[in-house]
């Protein structure tokens, strides 16, 4: 581990953030692009959910996280409060692992 890695990665990561949030994002954009941007979170959030639940690096996995996700989907659909969704999702994953 070197300071070079820390500092170069810091510059790259910050560069991406500034590029999106300041350099490109703060110009006025055509309407159609604005509508596109509104849909980014829907696409990326579901991507993050399936990635964090069903993959491990490049390997596809099906483990206790899938139960946690299923419980969270039902809890969210039932409009339970945020904290309850988290506790139920994480708790069911931990429970399944303990029992298994």
């Amino acid at each position: 581990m070197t300071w070079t890695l820390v500092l170069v990665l810091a510059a790259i990561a910050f560069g991406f953030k500034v590029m999106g949030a300041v350099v490109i994002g703060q110009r006025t954009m055509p309407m159609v692009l604005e509508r596109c941007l509104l849909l980014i979170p829907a696409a990326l959030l579901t991507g993050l959910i399936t990635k964090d639940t069903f993959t491990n690096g490049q390997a596809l996995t099906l483990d206790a996280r899938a139960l946690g996700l299923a419980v969270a989907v039902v809890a969210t659909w039932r409009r339970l409060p945020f904290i309850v969704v988290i506790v139920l999702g994480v708790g069911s994953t931990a429970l399944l692992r303990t029992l298994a």
Partner: protein
Amino acid sequence: MDHGPNQRSVAARTVRVALVMAVAFVVFGASFGVLAVGAGASVAQACAMSLLVFTGASQMSAVSVIASGGSVASALGGATLLAARNAVYGLALAPEVRGGPLRRAIGAQWVIDETTALVTSEADPASRRTVFWTAAPILYAAWNLGTLLGALAGGAIDPHRFGLDAAFPVMFTAMLAPHLRTRAGRRAALFGGITTVALAPFIPVGLPILVAAFGMLFGLSADGGES
């Protein structure tokens, strides 16, 4: 920022949500700290990484490459791919990251998965700003506190055992709900969820989630887009 009574209640609600998320951030920050020190980083280097890089997936990936004997260049490769999605998030959060140069620099640093998810689940611009500037410092503090604790303690907590690796997908699920109200949102979500898993085995880690962003085009084609 205008602080009407309404915004005060938005801030209070955001603090409660962010504190719940902060628990997960402290634990994962700590597991990053443990991994970093295990990979040969000093406590200062581990903390500097969390302060300056502040994007968990990139940090984890860089450290795990170094830990398994990879070069700095290969550590940077994967970490860069994982950091790239923050540019896309930045586009969505640009209205919240306005202000003087310092404010823009700090705001940009706080553009990550979780802040994007929180902010974009709000509809009105004032609430979005309040949510961003309330939640982001809490999550930033939690991530850095966790890193420091983990780097100092080394080992001890196993997030896996307590099901905490499920915390992020579970959180994102709760935050996704408002985006599924429109047909375009549902189509974009479907595209994002399927492509990420379908591509995972075939392209380098970090790329599938970028491809998922193209779900916005798929969503738009649904009906020319609606609010």
